[in-house]
């Protein structure tokens, strides 16, 4: 079965090559190839998730290790290897990526301007995302991380949209630049951390399981943990390094926002868990209160900011900051329950925020504005769109039966167990504030008397409906029956936390 | 055998003259000539040390040949650039050629 992991990265790369060979006068062919390869990735990711076998140990499955660089003077025998594997944490993340890219292809159907180049970059990004989730080699993890980040720049700067607000303007170039500078800044820290870890371990290898078996000096752990936590944390929307995220989301085209908020931000949290917490447990313990404080602040701050937004995308963007704050809270608990909750939240937020962005995109495509005060009563004209949007919103405000609740519940329980009562209380409060801004948005844009200005508005395209329905299936599935997720996650989390 | 100090003093003098030339001259051709002087000073050092320290090895000598080769290439390139500049601006005075600023 280890070919699956190889294929997961190879398919998007292969699709990129195929796109490049297609003459740009056949845009429909490009779309078809995108759908086929998107479907292949979706099926394989489901396969990885379903076929994941339980049974203790490190929880690494489908282990695939190919030599890449060895016997180079300063590297040891297994210096850099193309080491892929999935564990219980990356399995749901891989599934998430498969879902979001498959839905994203349908959402991107109407992109006409240089759609070949668009899909090249989009799939390149996806290959990077899969790579990060699957790599067990720090070098490749870093490599794929960069592959996932850099296409963002062009995707936003070329296909994005600038926004003009009364008092200020956010151009897409500004957003793209800020996003990439921020993330590259984060990766500088990660890179320093990787080199430091490599030198300190003295094993001559970047292989994560080998590095994980080493016990590092306590002071070293305390010094290096923040490098990783901050570097990855920037991608995870760690307050106060979050401002790239709402601006980036707003400027990006719909499918890119979906991937970005849905999957890319998870890379950061995943990195913290996979690298920082796994390698430096004592460092994690030392810095956990700080991470918790920043996480809670982000959760509350994002929620309150979202409440003040009128632009639909900004609202969703800030809600992402808020929800990623929950993820960081869960990670900072360093208890099985809390970290489980964090991973669940990564999945849940990925699916529901992708759905929200897809729906905002569906409105924006037709209306060309996103100011919620300009709408009104859209539910009468586009009931499905309203229903989909409402489901995403309800999941994000933590309605039981939908994905968000399961995750948030675990996180709150974890914070209380870890002894951060104040953080738990504030987190629950932030979840209540989420209800305020979601319902306020629904009331403003979708309910109330119909605004005749939008008489020409039509229901979503069929592709959008399909993409949305796909995401909803998983939102409901995880909300009603989370055991398949939790069984996988908890096994690996227990291994990482050494309980 | 001639003491090594003699070679070192010679190369030092040559090098200093070169530096003086580079800093004080304004004509581009003269500056290149000064640079050549400095390179040759270094070559002398290479050869001297090679002979005095490791007579059985040729490392230093080979480096000297490298230096000569590169110096020749460099002069060829530099003279080409200077010719173009002279054609364009009618002068080879480096003070008047400051296109590459800011």
């Amino acid at each position, binding site marked *: 079965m280890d070919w699956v992991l190889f294929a997961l990265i190879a398919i998007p790369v292969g699709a990129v090559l195929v796109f490049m060979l297609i003459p740009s006068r056949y845009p429909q062919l490009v779309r078809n190839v995108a759908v086929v390869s998107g479907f292949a990735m979706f099926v394989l990711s489901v396969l990885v998730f379903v076929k994941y076998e339980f049974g203790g140990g490190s929880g690494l499955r489908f282990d695939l290790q190919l030599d890449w660089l060895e016997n180079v003077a300063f590297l040891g025998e297994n210096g850099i290897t193309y080491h892929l594997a999935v564990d219980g944490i990356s399995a749901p993340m891989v599934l998430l990526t498969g879902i979001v890219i498959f839905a994203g292809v349908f959402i991107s159907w109407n992109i006409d301007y240089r759609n070949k180049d668009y899909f090249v970059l989009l799939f390149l990004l996806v290959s990077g995302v899969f790579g990060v989730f699957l790599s067990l080699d720090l070098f490749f993890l870093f490599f794929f991380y960069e592959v996932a980040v850099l296409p963002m720049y062009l995707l936003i700067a070329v296909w994005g949209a600038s926004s003009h607000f009364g008092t200020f303007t956010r151009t897409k170039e500004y957003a793209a630049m800020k996003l990439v500078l921020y993330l590259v800044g984060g990766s500088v820290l990660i890179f320093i951390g990787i080199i430091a870890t490599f030198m300190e371990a003295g094993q001559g290898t970047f292989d994560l399981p080998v590095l994980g078996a080493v016990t590092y000096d306590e002071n070293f752990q305390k010094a290096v943990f923040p490098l990783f936590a901050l570097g990855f944390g920037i991608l995870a929307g760690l307050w106060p390094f979050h401002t790239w995220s709402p601006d980036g989301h707003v400027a990006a085209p719909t499918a890119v926002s979906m991937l970005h908020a849905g999957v890319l931000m998870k890379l950061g949290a995943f990195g913290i868990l996979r690298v920082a917490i796994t390698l430096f447990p004592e460092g994690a313990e030392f810095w956990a209160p700080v991470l918790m404080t920043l996480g809670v602040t982000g959760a509350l701050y994002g929620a309150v900011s979202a409440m003040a937004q009128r632009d639909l995308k900004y609202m969703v963007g800030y809600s992402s900051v808020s929800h990623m704050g929950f993820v960081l809270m869960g990670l900072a608990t360093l208890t099985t329950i809390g970290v489980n909750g964090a991973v669940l939240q990564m999945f849940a937020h990925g699916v529901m925020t992708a759905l929200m962005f897809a729906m905002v995109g569906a409105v924006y495509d037709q209306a060309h504005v996103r100011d919620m005060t300009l709408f009104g009563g859209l539910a009468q004209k586009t009931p499905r769109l309203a229903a989909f949007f409402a489901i995403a919103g309800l999941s994000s405000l933590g309605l039981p039966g939908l994905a968000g609740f399961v995750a948030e519940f675990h996180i709150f329980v974890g914070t209380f167990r870890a002894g951060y009562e104040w953080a738990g209380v504030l987190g*629950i409060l932030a979840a209540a504030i989420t209800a305020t801004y979601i319902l306020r948005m629904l009331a403003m844009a979708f309910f109330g008397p119909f605004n005749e200005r939008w008489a020409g508005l039509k229901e979503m395209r069929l592709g959008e409906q399909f993409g949305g329905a796909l995401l909803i299936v998983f939102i409901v599935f995880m909300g009603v029956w989370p055991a398949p997720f939790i069984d996988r996650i908890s096994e690996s989390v227990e291994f990482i936390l050494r309980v | 055998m001639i003491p090594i100090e003699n070679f070192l003093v010679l190369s030092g003098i040559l090098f200093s003259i070169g530096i003086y030339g580079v800093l004080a001259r304004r004509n581009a051709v003269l500056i290149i000539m000064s640079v050549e002087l400095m390179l040759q000073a270094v070559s002398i050092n290479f050869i001297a040390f090679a002979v005095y320290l490791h007579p059985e090895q040729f490392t230093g000598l080979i480096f000297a040949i490298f230096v000569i080769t590169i110096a020749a290439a460099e002069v060829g390139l530099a003279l080409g650039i200077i010719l173009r500049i002279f054609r364009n601006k009618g002068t080879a005075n480096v003070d008047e050629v*400051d296109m590459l600023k800011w």
Partner: protein
Amino acid sequence: MEEAWLIPALPAAAFVILLLFGKYLPRHGDWLAIGAIATSFVLFFFVLADLLDDMVGTEFDKALGQSGIEWVSFGDFELRLGFQVDQLAIVMLAVVTFITLMVLVYSTGYMKGDPRYGWYFAAISLFAAAMLTLVLADNFLLLYAAWEGVGFGSYLLIGFWHEKRSATEAAKKAFITTRIGDVGLLIGIILLWREAGTFDMSEIFEFAESGGYSSEYLTMAVLFLFAGAVGKSAQFPLHVWLPDAMEGPTPVSALIHAATMVVAGVYLVARLMPLFAAADPIALNVVTAIGLTTVMMSATMGLVATDIKRVIAYSTINSLGLMMVALGSLSVSAAMLYLFAHSFFKALLFLSAGSVIHATERQEVSELGGLARRMPVTAAVFAVGALSMAGIVPLAGFWAKDEILNVAGDSQNFVVYGFLMLSVFITALYMTRVVILTFLGEPRDREAHQHAHDAEPVMTLPLLLLAGLTVMAGFVVFDGVGEALGFPGGIGEFVFLEGPEAFHFPWDVAVLSTLSAVAGLAGGFYFWSGAAEPARRAGELFRPAYEILKRKFFMDDIYQWAIDRVVLAAGGVIAWFDRNVVNDTGVDGSARLGVFAGFGMKFLETGKLPNYALAIVTGVIVLAIVFMVVRV
């Protein structure tokens, strides 16, 4: 008892089917929703029979009534979802299944022709499923999930006519207000779990009994839990959502905002009574105080409300407060008895008000009047409901209210008792007022009056059934009636906390409360009959008081002020802070610093060759000196 899970599962299945295929079913599938809930109602009798079989004397073997599945489990953390049936749950089951059935039947007439007819039945099925789950849950997690679920159902149904701005706003207000209480509920649940390590209610009760919680800890936890009940049961200070919730269709008000969801808070406190009893007495005092405040505020506000539904809504808040006072007096029996009786007469009131609204399309009492002549049946059943609410012998409301007054008199001080008696008077007063203004006197809107007539049979039949029950439900307090129904000793021996509570009938309380109620009736007729001249004069005489009541004690204004000036302002400040300080100063500022530094540095690049040469030479010399001094 194993089939108990079917009771919520049937409406849930009906919801899913209606949601996906409702459009293609004949009559949009209303028969499916009704059939599902009717089957649940039938199943209730089987469950009841099972439960009575399990009872040995008055003892009840709890373990028999439990079933469940493992939902999540890892390490030492386990979430079991299970159902349990006990006496508390059985009372609620009876109420919820029956009232839902009545309301659905009524709705086939009331909602006829609505463009979202099918969706209405789907939403009610969803609500019923959540409500029945709430009733049957044997653990706090499922309870919380169902708790949010009924809130969501209420949100959907209040905002059913979402074209109306006011309905949308009311739905939002209801959800958010109750959500504020739910913050407390969730915190309380987690606090209980943290010490006990389980979400299972009976295990937590055992843990509390064995002294696992310290007194302060438990008090704090139950007060947090009580916040959830305050939100859901519209207690002061979170009562503001309930009057606004009347924007929903009237049958919805009857079902959700009178008989079922709003009593969930009462049910929760009754369920948790072992914890309240084990906690510091302060907890119960808080319950009593909140309940009493709610009673007095809602009763007085009911006096001046002019919308027929809002008057009934205030009377609902009033009743809920009464139940809380009963619980504060540690009497589950009295509270559940009132809950039982209340569900019938309050649903009756709402549904007959619905008939009035349906017939006249008016809601303001100032536009009604004299309807008794045109809609005699509706008027009669409304009067029965109103009298029951006022507490007139021998209607259900009388027995229940009497029991509450009795336990309050026993365990509370005379101030509480006195206020309760006063509230009985005021209740009778405003119930009389609404009856007079709606059904008696001269019609104030001729046109509406002309068209008014009793509703069709499908709507009238539930009214008559409910009226019958309103008359009879109170008799369950008697031993004989209980025996006939299978639980000897009456409801007090069936639903109780620690020991069976026999029904008391102290004459002093009965006489006093009847006197108050009759005084209220008489006062009502004095003030509002005819041209209502005395009422107008009283209103002018106590102008400030009238204004305060009319403005609902300024609660809405205070909240609005807090939302505008505190919450939204804080949001604005944070958003401004984020844009201007964090982003424009912190992020762009540091970027600009880099640009500025680069701008300054670029002047070092003169483009003059000698300068560069000099720099190189100086650099080499400096480095040489450094190396010589440091001697690397």
